[in-house]
């Protein structure tokens, strides 16, 4: 009979350095999957949300339906959303990404539209008076001015996506959620706590990163504040 090693893994402790060193690769893989799921979803959502918001701004009648539809999508619980998409995507990472995209859409469309609507009419008229066409007005005046509001939405969407991605564990593509799910079934405390903490760390890091990007992209907002 071999002696059972008396380490924190054997004692099933919450905090365990042994776990970190022996499962390093598993943790890295989970973090990478988590980052990929989140980044791909938020980027796709952004690509869809910007035109939707611009359309809703251009044509007032489109705003109602666009906002209503994205809000309805947001109301549907995440587990249900992933399950409803199951027949379309099967058990795949695309299923989780599709679900996360639908969630991020509400936050992004709402915030970008709010930002576009907040552009002062004077500013728009001044740009038009200077001979700006609608495209140039949108790209060089309206969208940059909508950036602070849009970035606020992007930050919330990203943080929410990091936390929602864990639910993807139900189809086996939940990044750190997979470790949490597996740890729950085997009562593996160190794994559950480590994966949970990593989730929060990713969310906070992503939030700070986006805050930094926002500061770089919108130097004028700092001048106003000081």
């Amino acid at each position: 009979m071999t002696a059972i090693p008396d380490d924190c893994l054997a004692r099933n402790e919450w905090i365990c350095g042994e776990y970190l060193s022996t499962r390093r690769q598993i943790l890295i893989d989970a973090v990478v999957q988590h980052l990929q799921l989140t980044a791909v979803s938020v980027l796709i959502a952004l690509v869809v949300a910007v035109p939707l918001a611009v359309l809703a701004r251009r044509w007032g009648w489109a705003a109602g339906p666009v906002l209503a539809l994205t809000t309805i999508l947001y109301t549907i619980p995440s587990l249900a959303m992933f399950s409803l998409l199951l027949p379309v995507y099967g058990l795949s990472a695309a299923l989780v990404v599709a679900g996360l995209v639908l969630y991020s859409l509400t936050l992004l469309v709402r915030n970008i539209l709010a930002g576009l609507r907040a552009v002062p009419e004077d500013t728009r008229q001044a740009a038009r008076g200077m001979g700006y066409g609608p495209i140039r007005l949108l790209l060089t005046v309206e969208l940059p001015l909508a950036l602070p509001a849009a970035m606020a939405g992007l930050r919330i969407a990203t943080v929410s996506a990091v936390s929602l991605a864990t639910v993807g564990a139900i189809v086996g593509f939940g990044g750190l959620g997979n470790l949490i799910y597996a740890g729950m079934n085997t009562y593996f405390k160190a794994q559950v706590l480590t994966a949970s903490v990593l989730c929060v760390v990713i969310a906070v890091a992503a939030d700070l990163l986006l805050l930094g990007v926002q500061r770089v992209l919108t130097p004028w907002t700092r001048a106003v504040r000081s």
Partner: protein
Amino acid sequence: MKTLGDAWAWLTDSAHWAGDDGIWHRLTQHLVLTVVCLLLSCLIALPIALVLGHLGRGGALAVNISNVGRAVPTFAVLVLLLLTPLGKWGEGPTVVALVLFAVPPLLTNAYVGMRGVDRSIVRAARGMGMTGRQMLWRVELPLALPLVLSGVRIAAVQLVATATIAALAGGGGIGRIITAGFNLASTAQVVAGAVLVAVFALLVEGVFEAAERLAPGWARTRGSAG
């Protein structure tokens, strides 16, 4: 389309409605969980928010709690609680996790609502000789009500969604139909459960929407603080 037909067939099979794993029992569980947790979170969050708002202190705290809450994955908290001694106490972990997630929107909205009350009105009330308590109940709270109620609405919808995820961690509710479907590899059951949860969440949202429309003008929501 075939899957939807299968899901419909699953839903309309009376055998699936009866018993402890039946739809009726799961629906009731979901409703009871949501209502109990909503009441508990209101009891915790609203007094704190109203007092802090009245005193004008702790605003950063109220808003930050809400932001941090978003970064913490519900699923991770549920599993963490499940592995603590609390896990042996039936629905204990579910209730605690649900309340934890419903408190931030309630707290933030109520606080922002209280602080948003026009200061000149508060000064007028003070000038009329109202005590702090009278001001809180007769002036600030009624004026803050739209935002307070908007927080309750956000919390309620969030609770319905989170109660679904609770099923992943062994809790009851409609989510259980979905997780059982995954275990049985029955897409029909997964989709049927998802439709049930989605309809449930949309109904809750609809009820609040209707209540808002029926409310007198001054009590109507004018927006939310997130």
